[in-house]
């Protein structure tokens, strides 16, 4: 009988661990983004897929390269760089040249994420920071939105006669977009690669909720605030509910509310803080959309709120155990 016990590991309790891991969570986010990717391929052609793959590969490469170069432990396998890569592609026009997206990847992974200490340490969302960075090439980033149903060549995107105004541009002019609400919901509109199909993004959001990767607090607070403000302050004499639905379904709002504002590292941890943060994102989004220079407000709204989580984390700190009024005597069931 074997009762030999050599080479025992001694460590602090607990010795059991849930099956959850950073990699599992990040992979779940990637899975949740798949419907939107399929929609993008459907509306814009195979270049949507190749651009996303190039971006994801670029991010993983930069993550691996940086950690290798600085002799730090390798975090390239935790899927977080994949998430960043896919999200960067999702918020860019499908016609963006490959070299540009690789520069955006480099910016996001090295400058925004790794220089601050890598996963869990960055102040702002790397993908959104990359998008803000890409606005330095306005010719590439706006005014060249590919019309839905246009199959862009995988290798040499030429945009002659294929661009369109996005619904967001119409809203910025205080008019309702020409597309129907159904088009907006399904994604038959111009816009960034992964943000067009509200239906696909919502499907991904439901997956994240079911897998308990995110809670509804941030997305609901964010979307709810935008909805309430849009209903209260419709512009251009439009019907307030049409206006509200168009605001919700246009631009990067759903992608931002479900996948970007919920980024763990750059959002608060307390429940009340999360709600306040979501409300703040909503208010800023509407302010930027109504009064900003760019038509889109989501990017800067979330980036600014990212910088405030130190404050939001102080809201709703759980009450210390045992400091409540004691119910003495009576037993309760």
């Amino acid at each position, binding site marked *: 009988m074997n009762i030999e016990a050599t080479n025992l590991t*001694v460590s602090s309790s607990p*010795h059991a661990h849930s099956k*959850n*891991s950073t990699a599992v969570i990040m992979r779940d986010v990637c899975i949740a983004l798949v419907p939107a990717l399929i929609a993008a391929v459907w509306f814009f052609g195979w270049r949507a897929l190749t651009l996303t793959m190039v971006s994801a590969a670029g991010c993983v490469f930069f993550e691996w390269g940086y950690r290798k170069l600085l002799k730090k432990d390798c975090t390239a396998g935790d899927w977080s760089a994949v998430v960043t890569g896919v999200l960067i592609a999702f918020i860019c026009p499908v016609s963006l040249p490959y070299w540009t997206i690789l520069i955006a990847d480099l910016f996001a992974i090295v400058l925004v994420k790794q220089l601050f200490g890598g996963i869990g340490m960055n102040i702002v969302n790397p993908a959104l920071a990359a998008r803000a960075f890409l606005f330095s090439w306005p010719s590439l980033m706006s005014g060249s939105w590919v019309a839905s149903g246009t199959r862009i060549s995988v290798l040499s995107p030429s945009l002659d006669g294929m661009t369109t105004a996005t619904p967001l541009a119409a809203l910025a002019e205080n008019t309702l977009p020409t597309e129907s609400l159904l088009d907006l919901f399904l994604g038959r509109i111009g816009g960034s690669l992964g943000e067009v199909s509200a239906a696909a993004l919502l499907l991904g959001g439901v997956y994240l909720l079911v897998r308990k990767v995110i809670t509804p607090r941030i997305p609901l607070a964010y979307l709810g605030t935008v909805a309430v403000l849009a209903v209260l302050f419709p512009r251009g004499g439009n019907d307030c509910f049409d206006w509200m639905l168009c605001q919700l379904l246009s631009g990067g709002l759903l992608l931002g509310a479900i996948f970007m504002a919920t980024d763990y590292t750059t959002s608060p941890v307390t429940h009340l803080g999360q709600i306040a943060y979501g409300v703040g994102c909503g208010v800023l989004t509407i302010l930027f959309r109504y009064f900003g220079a760019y038509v889109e407000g989501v990017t800067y709204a979330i980036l600014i709120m990212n910088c405030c989580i130190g404050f939001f984390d102080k809201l709703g700190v759980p009450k210390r155990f045992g400091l409540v009024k004691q119910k003495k005597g009576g037993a309760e069931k």
Partner: protein
Amino acid sequence: MAPSFFGGVHPRGFKELSCEAPILPIRPKVVSIAMSQHIGRPCTPLVKLGDRVTVGQKIGDGEGLCVPVHASVSGTVIAVEPRPTPSGTEGLCVVIESDMQDTLCPDIQKRESVAELTPEELTAIIREAGITGMGGAGFPTNVKISSGMGKVDTVIINGAECEPYITSDDRLMREAPEKIAGGIRIIQKILQPERTALGIEKNKSRAIASMRAALPEDMELLELRVRYPQGAEKQLIQTVTGRQVPPGGLPAAVGCAVFNVATCKAIYDAVYEGLPLVRRAVTVTGRAIARPSNFLAPIGTPYADLVEAAGGFSSEPYKILCGGPMMGIAQHSLECGTIKGNNALTCFSQADNHEVETPHCIRCGKCLDVCPMRLMPLQMHKAAQKGDLLALEKGCVMDCIECGSCAYNCPAGIPLVQSFRTAKKMLRDEQAKQKAKEAVK
């Protein structure tokens, strides 16, 4: 909604490995009995090398917060020396070689009736029997009782056994429900509570049925939600009464006293059989064990004997725990002997290895959601890493009950509990330093 506590996690139970195995006696050839088995002062040995001892003979006792220890086998004392104990440190042990006769100490006498005994006399019997809390912490039971006298309106009996793998309390409730009920009756007689409730997690249906049949009408049986740490003292009190034990306070502060079912059985044995706490049910289980079992093991039974009786290792052991996976203490060898609070020996194989080499917090907040003490583990960990004592104190790190829910749930695999243990020690050391400074002034 079923009454409950804050947070908590639901680790897989693995109780099926050993829950159908009856508690079998085990007879070690040598026992190594630690003089420090409880919270408080260690005992001073009352025997010396070469002495003959009998089962139940007092072999160690002391003053202050201390209860005696007794010989668990009859035989000869072959050593009184420091030996490794399950807590990971060395401690003075009395080592007895068994003569395999199990001769009872002549002082041990049965009692037919306890009616004429006063609460003080009963408490004294419990002290002399060396009874300590058998659920883990090992607080002297007589002190718990006497400090609760006059303050306690609710007595809670803990049969939750929420820690995965362990089945010793489950088996005890199935096999000796009358003795447990008898023990509870004695506690009732001493403390005179308005309410007595036994809490058992819902997944132990056989134990629930068995206890229901044995409990008299004035005792409640509560079927508790299966959620760890349901059996933690503060959480059980919250579940049963809705009251929260104040920070740094004892259960008596909210009118409660909590006793483990195994402790109740030990009280019965002490009062009716006259038998001190010399053996207890121990579950030997885990993936690395060939035949997971439950044993009635004399205190001080070497772990090697327990493993051997359970069929040895079926695969190479990776970790061996005194206790269960959530709060158990990892052992570096099999040479320690069991102690009074030792409800299980859990043996993991390499397949149970979940260690992450360089964990990175991603601020997911999943630690915060499961903390039953409503702490913010991620902030506390940050402060602990920086050695920021002020932030640690403000974060109430001393409130941490080290249940392990946060670390269990952490996707990054950060050893949070280890971090908090270190932080608590830093704080305690600092406070001691401050006190010393003030004393000099």
